[in-house]
Protein backbone atom coordinates (compact mmCIF):
# COMPACT_ATOMS: atom_id res chain seq x y z
CA UNK A 1 0.00 0.00 0.00
CA UNK A 2 1.64 3.21 -1.12
CA UNK A 3 -0.89 5.89 -0.14
CA UNK A 4 -0.37 6.83 3.48
CA UNK A 5 -3.41 7.82 5.53
CA UNK A 6 -3.63 11.46 6.58
CA UNK A 7 -2.10 12.51 9.86
CA UNK A 8 -5.52 13.70 10.98
CA UNK A 9 -6.97 10.22 10.47
CA UNK A 10 -4.08 8.63 12.39
CA UNK A 11 -4.53 11.10 15.24
CA UNK A 12 -8.24 10.41 15.44
CA UNK A 13 -7.52 6.67 15.43
CA UNK A 14 -4.90 7.04 18.16
CA UNK A 15 -7.26 9.14 20.24
CA UNK A 16 -9.87 6.35 19.99
CA UNK A 17 -12.29 8.72 18.29
CA UNK A 18 -15.58 6.82 18.13
CA UNK A 19 -16.72 8.95 15.20
CA UNK A 20 -14.12 7.44 12.86
CA UNK A 21 -15.97 5.25 10.39
CA UNK A 22 -15.31 1.53 10.15
CA UNK A 23 -13.92 1.57 6.61
CA UNK A 24 -11.26 4.10 7.57
CA UNK A 25 -10.33 2.19 10.72
CA UNK A 26 -10.06 -1.02 8.74
CA UNK A 27 -7.73 0.42 6.11
CA UNK A 28 -5.74 2.23 8.81
CA UNK A 29 -5.17 -0.97 10.71
CA UNK A 30 -4.13 -2.84 7.61
CA UNK A 31 -1.75 -0.04 6.71
CA UNK A 32 -0.28 0.39 10.18
CA UNK A 33 0.70 -3.26 10.31
CA UNK A 34 2.86 -2.75 7.25
CA UNK A 35 4.16 0.80 7.59
CA UNK A 36 6.77 1.70 10.20
CA UNK A 37 6.58 5.43 9.40
CA UNK A 38 2.87 5.62 10.11
CA UNK A 39 3.36 3.63 13.33
CA UNK A 40 5.85 6.31 14.38
CA UNK A 41 3.29 9.01 13.52
CA UNK A 42 0.70 7.13 15.56
CA UNK A 43 3.05 7.05 18.55
CA UNK A 44 3.09 10.86 18.50
CA UNK A 45 -0.68 11.10 18.68
CA UNK A 46 -1.56 8.73 21.49
CA UNK A 47 -3.51 9.96 24.49
CA UNK A 48 -2.01 10.68 27.89
CA UNK A 49 -3.80 7.66 29.26
CA UNK A 50 -2.18 5.42 26.68
CA UNK A 51 1.25 6.87 27.30
CA UNK A 52 0.90 6.30 31.04
CA UNK A 53 -0.21 2.73 30.44
CA UNK A 54 2.69 2.06 28.09
CA UNK A 55 5.18 3.47 30.61
CA UNK A 56 3.67 1.42 33.39
CA UNK A 57 3.94 -1.76 31.34
CA UNK A 58 7.54 -0.86 30.45
CA UNK A 59 8.40 -0.74 34.14
CA UNK A 60 6.64 -4.04 34.79
CA UNK A 61 8.57 -5.57 31.89
CA UNK A 62 11.83 -4.29 33.37
CA UNK A 63 11.05 -6.02 36.61
CA UNK A 64 9.91 -9.29 35.02
CA UNK A 65 12.89 -9.46 32.69
CA UNK A 66 15.33 -8.77 35.51
CA UNK A 67 13.70 -11.50 37.62
CA UNK A 68 13.49 -14.13 34.88
CA UNK A 69 16.25 -16.05 33.16
CA UNK A 70 17.94 -14.59 30.11
CA UNK A 71 16.40 -15.84 26.90
CA UNK A 72 18.09 -18.97 25.66
CA UNK A 73 20.38 -18.40 22.76
CA UNK A 74 19.69 -20.46 19.75
CA UNK A 75 22.15 -23.30 19.58
CA UNK A 76 23.25 -23.54 16.01
CA UNK A 77 25.17 -26.75 16.39
CA UNK A 78 22.09 -28.68 17.49
CA UNK A 79 20.23 -30.51 14.77
CA UNK A 80 16.58 -29.65 14.25
CA UNK A 81 14.48 -31.03 17.06
CA UNK A 82 12.52 -33.35 14.84
CA UNK A 83 15.65 -35.16 13.68
CA UNK A 84 17.34 -35.34 17.01
CA UNK A 85 15.36 -38.20 18.55
CA UNK A 86 16.29 -40.30 15.51
CA UNK A 87 19.96 -39.76 16.16
CA UNK A 88 19.55 -40.90 19.74
CA UNK A 89 17.20 -43.82 19.08
CA UNK A 90 18.46 -45.19 15.77
CA UNK A 91 22.21 -44.66 15.72
CA UNK A 92 23.05 -47.25 18.40
CA UNK A 93 21.09 -49.94 16.61
CA UNK A 94 22.31 -49.08 13.17
CA UNK A 95 25.94 -48.92 14.25
CA UNK A 96 25.52 -52.27 15.97
CA UNK A 97 24.12 -53.71 12.75
CA UNK A 98 27.04 -52.39 10.76
CA UNK A 99 29.55 -53.89 13.20
CA UNK A 100 27.80 -57.27 12.96
CA UNK A 101 28.01 -57.08 9.18
CA UNK A 102 31.69 -56.27 9.37
CA UNK A 103 32.25 -59.18 11.75
CA UNK A 104 30.37 -61.51 9.40
CA UNK A 105 32.51 -60.35 6.50
CA UNK A 106 35.71 -61.02 8.46
CA UNK A 107 34.42 -64.43 9.53
CA UNK A 108 33.67 -65.30 5.91
CA UNK A 109 37.16 -64.20 4.97
CA UNK A 110 38.79 -66.48 7.55
CA UNK A 111 36.56 -69.50 7.01
CA UNK A 112 35.96 -69.74 3.29
CA UNK A 113 34.75 -73.33 3.66
CA UNK A 114 31.51 -72.21 5.32
CA UNK A 115 28.70 -70.53 3.34
CA UNK A 116 28.85 -66.73 3.28
CA UNK A 117 27.87 -65.37 6.69
CA UNK A 118 27.25 -62.00 5.17
CA UNK A 119 24.70 -63.39 2.77
CA UNK A 120 22.96 -65.30 5.56
CA UNK A 121 22.56 -62.36 7.93
CA UNK A 122 22.05 -59.66 5.29
CA UNK A 123 18.23 -60.09 5.17
CA UNK A 124 18.03 -59.29 8.88
CA UNK A 125 20.32 -56.26 8.79
CA UNK A 126 17.66 -53.50 8.74
CA UNK A 127 15.41 -55.13 11.34
CA UNK A 128 17.02 -53.92 14.59
CA UNK A 129 16.89 -50.36 13.27
CA UNK A 130 13.31 -50.71 12.04
CA UNK A 131 12.26 -52.17 15.38
CA UNK A 132 13.84 -49.23 17.18
CA UNK A 133 12.20 -46.78 14.82
CA UNK A 134 8.68 -47.72 15.93
CA UNK A 135 8.93 -49.15 19.39
CA UNK A 136 7.67 -48.38 22.86
CA UNK A 137 11.11 -49.05 24.26
CA UNK A 138 13.16 -46.98 21.88
CA UNK A 139 10.77 -44.01 21.74
CA UNK A 140 9.76 -42.86 25.22
CA UNK A 141 7.11 -40.49 23.86
CA UNK A 142 5.39 -43.27 21.91
CA UNK A 143 1.94 -42.75 23.39
CA UNK A 144 2.06 -39.00 22.86
CA UNK A 145 3.24 -39.40 19.30
CA UNK A 146 0.70 -42.10 18.46
CA UNK A 147 -2.10 -39.61 19.17
CA UNK A 148 -0.87 -36.89 16.84
CA UNK A 149 -2.15 -36.36 13.30
CA UNK A 150 1.38 -36.85 11.95
CA UNK A 151 1.53 -40.40 13.31
CA UNK A 152 0.80 -43.11 10.79
CA UNK A 153 2.25 -44.96 7.87
CA UNK A 154 4.01 -41.90 6.46
CA UNK A 155 5.92 -41.43 9.69
CA UNK A 156 6.78 -45.14 9.93
CA UNK A 157 8.02 -45.12 6.35
CA UNK A 158 10.07 -41.97 6.90
CA UNK A 159 11.76 -43.52 9.91
CA UNK A 160 12.27 -46.81 8.06
CA UNK A 161 13.80 -44.92 5.16
CA UNK A 162 16.24 -43.30 7.58
CA UNK A 163 17.31 -46.76 8.74
CA UNK A 164 17.61 -48.09 5.20
CA UNK A 165 19.60 -45.06 4.09
CA UNK A 166 22.30 -46.14 6.55
CA UNK A 167 22.01 -49.92 6.30
CA UNK A 168 21.69 -50.37 2.53
CA UNK A 169 25.02 -48.70 1.67
CA UNK A 170 26.68 -50.78 4.39
CA UNK A 171 25.20 -53.93 2.85
CA UNK A 172 26.26 -52.92 -0.64
CA UNK A 173 29.81 -52.20 0.45
CA UNK A 174 30.07 -55.47 2.35
CA UNK A 175 28.61 -57.33 -0.61
CA UNK A 176 31.08 -55.84 -3.02
CA UNK A 177 34.00 -56.45 -0.68
CA UNK A 178 33.26 -60.15 -0.36
CA UNK A 179 34.01 -61.63 -3.76
CA UNK A 180 31.29 -63.74 -5.28
CA UNK A 181 28.33 -62.38 -3.28
CA UNK A 182 25.80 -60.98 -5.73
CA UNK A 183 24.68 -57.49 -4.64
CA UNK A 184 21.05 -58.18 -5.57
CA UNK A 185 20.95 -61.07 -3.11
CA UNK A 186 22.43 -58.82 -0.44
CA UNK A 187 19.81 -56.13 -0.87
CA UNK A 188 16.52 -57.67 -2.06
CA UNK A 189 16.01 -60.10 0.86
CA UNK A 190 16.69 -57.30 3.34
CA UNK A 191 14.05 -55.15 1.68
CA UNK A 192 11.60 -58.05 1.72
CA UNK A 193 12.24 -58.57 5.41
CA UNK A 194 11.80 -54.87 6.12
CA UNK A 195 8.43 -54.92 4.35
CA UNK A 196 7.43 -58.12 6.15
CA UNK A 197 8.33 -56.55 9.50
CA UNK A 198 6.14 -53.55 8.85
CA UNK A 199 3.24 -55.66 7.60
CA UNK A 200 3.39 -58.08 10.50
CA UNK A 201 4.04 -55.12 12.80
CA UNK A 202 0.74 -53.54 11.84
CA UNK A 203 -0.89 -56.55 13.49
CA UNK A 204 1.31 -57.36 16.48
CA UNK A 205 3.66 -54.39 16.85
CA UNK A 206 6.76 -53.64 14.83
CA UNK A 207 9.24 -54.63 17.50
CA UNK A 208 7.65 -58.01 18.10
CA UNK A 209 7.42 -58.59 14.35
CA UNK A 210 11.13 -57.85 13.91
CA UNK A 211 12.12 -60.17 16.76
CA UNK A 212 9.85 -62.92 15.44
CA UNK A 213 11.14 -62.72 11.91
CA UNK A 214 14.74 -62.69 13.06
CA UNK A 215 14.08 -65.81 15.13
CA UNK A 216 12.33 -67.65 12.33
CA UNK A 217 15.02 -66.84 9.77
CA UNK A 218 17.80 -67.86 12.14
CA UNK A 219 16.15 -71.15 13.03
CA UNK A 220 14.87 -72.05 9.58
CA UNK A 221 17.70 -70.87 7.34
CA UNK A 222 20.86 -69.67 9.10
CA UNK A 223 21.30 -72.60 11.51
CA UNK A 224 20.63 -75.43 8.96
CA UNK A 225 22.89 -73.79 6.36
CA UNK A 226 25.74 -73.58 8.83
CA UNK A 227 25.12 -77.19 9.89
CA UNK A 228 25.31 -78.57 6.37
CA UNK A 229 27.88 -75.94 5.27
CA UNK A 230 25.91 -75.06 2.19
CA UNK A 231 23.99 -71.98 1.02
CA UNK A 232 20.21 -72.50 1.09
CA UNK A 233 18.33 -72.52 -2.18
CA UNK A 234 16.53 -69.28 -1.28
CA UNK A 235 19.84 -67.43 -1.45
CA UNK A 236 20.94 -68.88 -4.80
CA UNK A 237 21.27 -66.22 -7.52
CA UNK A 238 18.20 -67.66 -9.27
CA UNK A 239 15.94 -66.61 -6.37
CA UNK A 240 16.57 -62.87 -6.81
CA UNK A 241 13.44 -62.46 -8.92
CA UNK A 242 11.32 -64.17 -6.30
CA UNK A 243 12.66 -61.83 -3.60
CA UNK A 244 11.84 -58.81 -5.74
CA UNK A 245 8.30 -60.04 -6.30
CA UNK A 246 7.80 -60.80 -2.60
CA UNK A 247 9.03 -57.34 -1.65
CA UNK A 248 6.61 -55.70 -4.07
CA UNK A 249 3.63 -57.72 -2.83
CA UNK A 250 4.43 -57.11 0.84
CA UNK A 251 4.93 -53.40 0.24
CA UNK A 252 1.55 -53.19 -1.46
CA UNK A 253 -0.09 -55.04 1.44
CA UNK A 254 1.40 -52.54 3.91
CA UNK A 255 -0.58 -49.76 2.29
CA UNK A 256 -3.78 -51.73 2.82
CA UNK A 257 -2.98 -51.86 6.51
CA UNK A 258 -1.99 -48.19 6.68
CA UNK A 259 -4.66 -47.14 9.18
CA UNK A 260 -3.40 -49.52 11.86
CA UNK A 261 -0.23 -47.43 12.20
CA UNK A 262 -2.37 -44.72 13.71
CA UNK A 263 -3.12 -46.86 16.76
CA UNK A 264 -1.12 -48.05 19.72
CA UNK A 265 -1.25 -51.70 18.64
CA UNK A 266 1.42 -51.11 15.98
CA UNK A 267 3.94 -50.08 18.63
Amino acid at each position, binding site marked *: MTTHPTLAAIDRYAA*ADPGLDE*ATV*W*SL*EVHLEECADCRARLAGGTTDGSRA*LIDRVAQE*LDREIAAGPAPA*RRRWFRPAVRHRWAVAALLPWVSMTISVLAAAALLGHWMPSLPSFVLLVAPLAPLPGVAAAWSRRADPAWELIAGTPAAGLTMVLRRTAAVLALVIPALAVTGMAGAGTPTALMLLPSLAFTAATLLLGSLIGVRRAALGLMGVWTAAVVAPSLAVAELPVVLEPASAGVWAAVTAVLAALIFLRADSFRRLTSY
Partner: protein
Amino acid sequence: MKRSLDAADERELVRRVARGDRRAFDELYRRTAPWLETRLRRRCADPDMVADVLQETYLAVWRAAASFAGDEVKGSAVGWLWTIAAHRLVDAFRRRARQAELPAVHPHETFVPAAEDEVMAARVGQELEQALSVLPPEAREVLRATVLDGFSIRETSVLLGVPENTVKSRIRRARIALREALS
Protein backbone atom coordinates in the same frame (compact mmCIF):
# COMPACT_ATOMS: atom_id res chain seq x y z
CA MET B 1 25.66 1.73 18.25
CA LYS B 2 22.68 4.00 18.75
CA ARG B 3 22.64 4.84 15.09
CA SER B 4 22.65 1.20 14.07
CA LEU B 5 19.58 0.59 16.26
CA ASP B 6 17.79 3.48 14.58
CA ALA B 7 18.52 2.04 11.18
CA ALA B 8 17.37 -1.47 12.06
CA ASP B 9 13.87 -2.48 11.05
CA GLU B 10 11.58 -4.46 13.36
CA ARG B 11 12.73 -7.75 11.93
CA GLU B 12 16.33 -6.92 12.66
CA LEU B 13 15.36 -5.79 16.14
CA VAL B 14 13.69 -9.14 16.84
CA ARG B 15 16.81 -10.85 15.60
CA ARG B 16 18.88 -8.87 18.08
CA VAL B 17 16.42 -9.53 20.88
CA ALA B 18 16.94 -13.20 20.06
CA ARG B 19 20.59 -12.70 20.97
CA GLY B 20 19.56 -11.28 24.33
CA ASP B 21 20.04 -7.60 23.34
CA ARG B 22 18.06 -5.65 25.91
CA ARG B 23 18.47 -2.31 24.12
CA ALA B 24 17.04 -3.72 20.94
CA PHE B 25 14.09 -4.95 22.98
CA ASP B 26 13.51 -1.48 24.44
CA GLU B 27 13.70 0.01 20.97
CA LEU B 28 11.21 -2.53 19.66
CA TYR B 29 8.89 -1.69 22.54
CA ARG B 30 9.26 2.04 21.99
CA ARG B 31 8.39 1.71 18.32
CA THR B 32 5.56 -0.82 18.42
CA ALA B 33 3.89 -0.52 21.83
CA PRO B 34 1.83 2.61 20.98
CA TRP B 35 0.48 0.92 17.87
CA LEU B 36 -0.28 -2.33 19.69
CA GLU B 37 -1.84 -0.56 22.65
CA THR B 38 -4.12 1.49 20.42
CA ARG B 39 -5.18 -1.55 18.46
CA LEU B 40 -5.86 -3.57 21.59
CA ARG B 41 -7.78 -0.73 23.19
CA ARG B 42 -10.10 -0.66 20.21
CA ARG B 43 -10.97 -4.28 20.99
CA CYS B 44 -11.07 -4.16 24.74
CA ALA B 45 -12.44 -1.32 26.83
CA ASP B 46 -10.76 -2.37 30.07
CA PRO B 47 -7.36 -0.62 30.38
CA ASP B 48 -6.10 -3.08 33.00
CA MET B 49 -6.76 -5.96 30.66
CA VAL B 50 -4.98 -4.10 27.84
CA ALA B 51 -2.00 -3.53 30.15
CA ASP B 52 -1.89 -7.22 31.09
CA VAL B 53 -2.07 -8.34 27.48
CA LEU B 54 0.59 -5.83 26.45
CA GLN B 55 2.91 -7.02 29.19
CA GLU B 56 2.37 -10.71 28.44
CA THR B 57 2.91 -10.09 24.75
CA TYR B 58 6.27 -8.36 25.12
CA LEU B 59 7.43 -10.86 27.73
CA ALA B 60 6.62 -13.61 25.24
CA VAL B 61 8.57 -11.71 22.58
CA TRP B 62 11.57 -11.48 24.90
CA ARG B 63 11.39 -15.16 25.74
CA ALA B 64 10.50 -16.65 22.35
CA ALA B 65 12.37 -14.31 20.02
CA ALA B 66 15.13 -16.89 19.62
CA SER B 67 12.82 -19.52 18.21
CA PHE B 68 11.02 -16.99 16.02
CA ALA B 69 14.16 -15.48 14.56
CA GLY B 70 15.96 -18.80 14.45
CA ASP B 71 13.45 -20.84 12.53
CA GLU B 72 13.65 -18.35 9.67
CA VAL B 73 9.92 -17.99 9.81
CA LYS B 74 8.56 -16.01 6.92
CA GLY B 75 6.34 -13.08 7.68
CA SER B 76 6.68 -9.71 9.32
CA ALA B 77 7.83 -9.20 12.89
CA VAL B 78 4.96 -6.78 13.45
CA GLY B 79 2.42 -9.32 12.23
CA TRP B 80 4.01 -11.81 14.61
CA LEU B 81 3.57 -9.32 17.47
CA TRP B 82 -0.09 -8.95 16.66
CA THR B 83 -0.63 -12.72 16.54
CA ILE B 84 0.89 -13.11 20.00
CA ALA B 85 -1.18 -10.25 21.38
CA ALA B 86 -4.37 -11.56 19.77
CA HIS B 87 -4.07 -14.97 21.41
CA ARG B 88 -3.26 -13.42 24.77
CA LEU B 89 -6.27 -11.14 24.43
CA VAL B 90 -8.53 -14.15 23.95
CA ASP B 91 -6.94 -15.81 26.98
CA ALA B 92 -7.74 -12.69 29.01
CA PHE B 93 -11.35 -12.83 27.80
CA ARG B 94 -11.53 -16.51 28.71
CA ARG B 95 -10.26 -15.70 32.18
CA ARG B 96 -12.89 -13.01 32.54
CA ALA B 97 -15.66 -15.24 31.27
CA ARG B 98 -14.64 -17.83 33.84
CA GLN B 99 -14.48 -15.35 36.70
CA ALA B 100 -17.90 -13.97 35.80
CA GLU B 101 -19.50 -17.36 36.24
CA LEU B 102 -18.73 -21.01 35.76
CA PRO B 103 -20.06 -21.83 32.33
CA ALA B 104 -22.94 -24.25 32.42
CA VAL B 105 -22.45 -27.46 30.51
CA HIS B 106 -24.38 -26.87 27.35
CA PRO B 107 -24.44 -28.65 24.02
CA HIS B 108 -23.72 -26.61 20.94
CA GLU B 109 -26.96 -25.25 19.66
CA THR B 110 -28.28 -27.17 16.70
CA PHE B 111 -28.96 -25.65 13.31
CA VAL B 112 -29.49 -26.90 9.82
CA PRO B 113 -26.36 -25.94 7.86
CA ALA B 114 -26.91 -23.42 5.11
CA ALA B 115 -25.39 -24.18 1.75
CA GLU B 116 -22.62 -21.73 0.98
CA ASP B 117 -19.95 -21.21 -1.58
CA GLU B 118 -16.63 -19.52 -2.14
CA VAL B 119 -13.78 -18.59 0.13
CA MET B 120 -13.47 -15.03 1.30
CA ALA B 121 -10.38 -13.54 -0.26
CA ALA B 122 -7.55 -12.65 2.10
CA ARG B 123 -6.64 -9.62 0.08
CA VAL B 124 -9.74 -7.55 -0.14
CA GLY B 125 -8.49 -4.09 -0.85
CA GLN B 126 -10.09 -0.70 -0.88
CA GLU B 127 -13.41 -1.82 -2.31
CA LEU B 128 -14.18 -4.15 0.55
CA GLU B 129 -13.19 -1.55 3.08
CA GLN B 130 -15.69 0.84 1.54
CA ALA B 131 -18.35 -1.85 1.29
CA LEU B 132 -17.96 -2.54 5.00
CA SER B 133 -19.99 0.52 5.80
CA VAL B 134 -23.10 -1.12 4.38
CA LEU B 135 -22.90 -3.96 6.89
CA PRO B 136 -24.75 -4.02 10.18
CA PRO B 137 -22.42 -3.44 13.16
CA GLU B 138 -22.46 -7.03 14.44
CA ALA B 139 -21.48 -8.33 11.00
CA ARG B 140 -18.60 -5.85 10.79
CA GLU B 141 -17.51 -6.98 14.20
CA VAL B 142 -17.15 -10.63 13.20
CA LEU B 143 -15.42 -9.75 9.95
CA ARG B 144 -12.95 -7.55 11.77
CA ALA B 145 -12.20 -10.30 14.27
CA THR B 146 -11.76 -13.07 11.72
CA VAL B 147 -10.49 -11.46 8.53
CA LEU B 148 -8.57 -8.44 9.82
CA ASP B 149 -7.39 -9.72 13.21
CA GLY B 150 -6.96 -13.36 12.24
CA PHE B 151 -8.94 -14.85 15.11
CA SER B 152 -10.40 -18.32 14.70
CA ILE B 153 -14.15 -18.79 14.89
CA ARG B 154 -13.79 -20.14 18.41
CA GLU B 155 -11.68 -17.21 19.54
CA THR B 156 -14.10 -14.76 17.99
CA SER B 157 -16.89 -16.40 19.90
CA VAL B 158 -15.01 -15.91 23.19
CA LEU B 159 -14.06 -12.36 22.29
CA LEU B 160 -17.53 -11.21 21.35
CA GLY B 161 -19.31 -13.38 23.87
CA VAL B 162 -21.65 -15.00 21.35
CA PRO B 163 -21.99 -18.70 20.44
CA GLU B 164 -19.80 -20.10 17.67
CA ASN B 165 -22.70 -20.83 15.39
CA THR B 166 -23.85 -17.23 15.67
CA VAL B 167 -20.38 -16.06 14.63
CA LYS B 168 -20.53 -18.42 11.68
CA SER B 169 -23.97 -17.33 10.52
CA ARG B 170 -22.98 -13.65 10.84
CA ILE B 171 -19.95 -14.26 8.64
CA ARG B 172 -22.10 -16.00 6.06
CA ARG B 173 -24.60 -13.17 6.07
CA ALA B 174 -21.84 -10.58 5.88
CA ARG B 175 -20.39 -12.38 2.90
CA ILE B 176 -23.68 -12.33 1.05
CA ALA B 177 -24.21 -8.66 1.85
CA LEU B 178 -20.69 -7.80 0.72
CA ARG B 179 -21.08 -9.67 -2.51
CA GLU B 180 -24.21 -7.68 -3.28
CA ALA B 181 -22.54 -4.42 -2.33
CA LEU B 182 -19.50 -5.12 -4.47
CA SER B 183 -21.39 -6.26 -7.57
